[in-house]
């Protein structure tokens, strides 16, 4: 399918993502932060659709927005006491943090302005009608080892999370 109104959607979605990101790091109430992060993640899934990556978009919606954020919300509900929200919300070294982040931002801008020519023009739009099949070929062919290790990692994470959160080991 031919792309429709790409600049409009890109700027709209990137605006939503950036506003969501700012809300994540500035809200006092962690539940509001989590909601803003969900909005950011869903906007990012839409940007993946624009980048001809429907499978990654689907995985993002299921795992990130539907799994990890539910986990975050549960934990926020468990640990959120009212006393927390009346305290100061920013660190004592926030100035140094902002300076470091600005330096990093300057570095990014320098790289991207100087190296603008190394990014070639966009190739033809990729076919997305067999994106899932192609990813499956790569995942179970070339990256099989990494796939198995990822499943082992998840097993270790499950055991670790259960052990960490138990009352008596």
């Amino acid at each position, binding site marked *: 399918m031919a792309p429709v109104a790409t600049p409009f959607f890109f700027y709209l979605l990137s605006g939503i993502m950036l506003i969501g990101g700012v809300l994540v790091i500035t809200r006092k109430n962690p*539940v509001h932060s989590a909601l803003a992060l969900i909005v950011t993640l869903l906007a990012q899934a839409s940007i993946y659709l624009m980048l001809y990556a429907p499978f990654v978009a689907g995985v993002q*919606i299921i795992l990130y927005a539907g799994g990890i954020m539910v986990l975050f919300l549960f934990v926020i509900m468990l640990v959120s006491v009212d006393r927390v929200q009346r305290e100061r919300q920013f660190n004592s070294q926030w100035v140094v943090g902002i300076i470091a982040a600005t330096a990093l931002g300057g570095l990014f801008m320098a790289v991207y302005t100087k190296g603008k020519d190394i990014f070639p023009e966009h190739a033809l739009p990729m076919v997305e009608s067999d994106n899932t099949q192609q990813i499956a070929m790569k995942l179970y062919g070339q990256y099989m080892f990494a796939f198995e290790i990822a499943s082992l990692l998840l097993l270790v994470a499950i055991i670790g999370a259960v052990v960490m959160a138990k009352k008596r080991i």
Partner: protein
Amino acid sequence: MFAYIKSYLSSAQTPGAAGNMFWVLVYILVIFTGLAIAVMLMTWLERKVLAHMQVRLGPMRVGPHGLLQPIADSLKLLLKEDIMPAEADAFVFWIAPFIVVLAAFTVFVVIPFGPTHAITDMNIGILFMLGVSSLSVLGIVMAGWASNSHYPLIGALRSSAQMVSYEVAMGLAVVSAILMTSLNAEGTGTLSMIGIVQAQLAQHEWFIFKFFPLGLIAFFIFAVAMIAETNRAPFDLAEAESELTAGFHTEYSGFRWSLFFLSEYTAMIAVSSIAVTLWLGGWLRPFPNLLSGPTWDRAFSLFPGIAFLFLAAMCFFNATRMPKHPLFRIQTIGLAVFGIVLGLIGLILFIPAVSMRVQDIFWFSAKVGGFMYLYIWYRGTFPRYRFDQLMQMGWKVLLPLGLGVLILTAGVALLQQKLWHP
């Protein structure tokens, strides 16, 4: 402009795939309206069918046989006072119903009512549906938390734990069905909903009957998991009145509660559509390959008209059985007029041009309607599961069963590929 509108009618794709924005909007409006009507019909049907199962009559007063009851219910809900608890988090309290409604309605973007009758046909259709329907857990958790009260919080936590547990079983059953789509010449399956139904057409077998009993067990796992997903009886502990006042939507009144209600029924229709598409052949009429040919097509295309005429006949029959009292005259006339309208729709559906187009939608809706009836039947029949029994069944029974079915399906499919196409 007209050329743009007409150009879609000759293409054999869904409007989303063809890139035709006008028809996409038309389809969205039609599906939205259809869902609203279906939910209203479902509320009436549930009360009447449940009542008849319990040997009572159900709503009879508002219209003839309670047919105007949904309208009265919606009016009441719209006019009720909007209460917000004192210490509740206003923004989260306000946004939670919208998230649940959004998650429930966005699923319908990929549901195929026919080979070209879907809003769009995504390459990741079934993945998208599973993912978006898991977003409703977020809305429920937020609703329970923002109400700032004990019963909603416990209800929300229980409900979300239940939904997350049964999503795993649902996912495994879905993967078993997707495996069966890859038994074609190229050996690649598809996640797209339209592709799944076309795979069933190409393999001459609905997936519920494939590799008997594996398809049946996978369908059974999905059927049980989908009832737990939508918090319906017998898995409705989270909103049971006798245990938890009303669970996560206790503090919601009026229009906000009706949004939760709407999203519950829409989610029911959505997961039933998934079950119908994956196992019961979607929009395919019974025996599309065995009894094929123009005469059989014509014979089966008479079914929509016959169904509506049957409903009209039932309306007329009940109109004659109304009490012969002057005060009942308006209800009798109303029922007769309703019967005439249904009969006219039935007669219109006999016209070949109309029935050829409407056939797929009719068979799909009939199958989903069967599932809706099953939902009501389960509510009237089964006692409620206790919460620990519920979780035990989700993790200790359905998950191993789903894994077993998946492994066996993969094994049998591999065997079939090796033996028949070496």
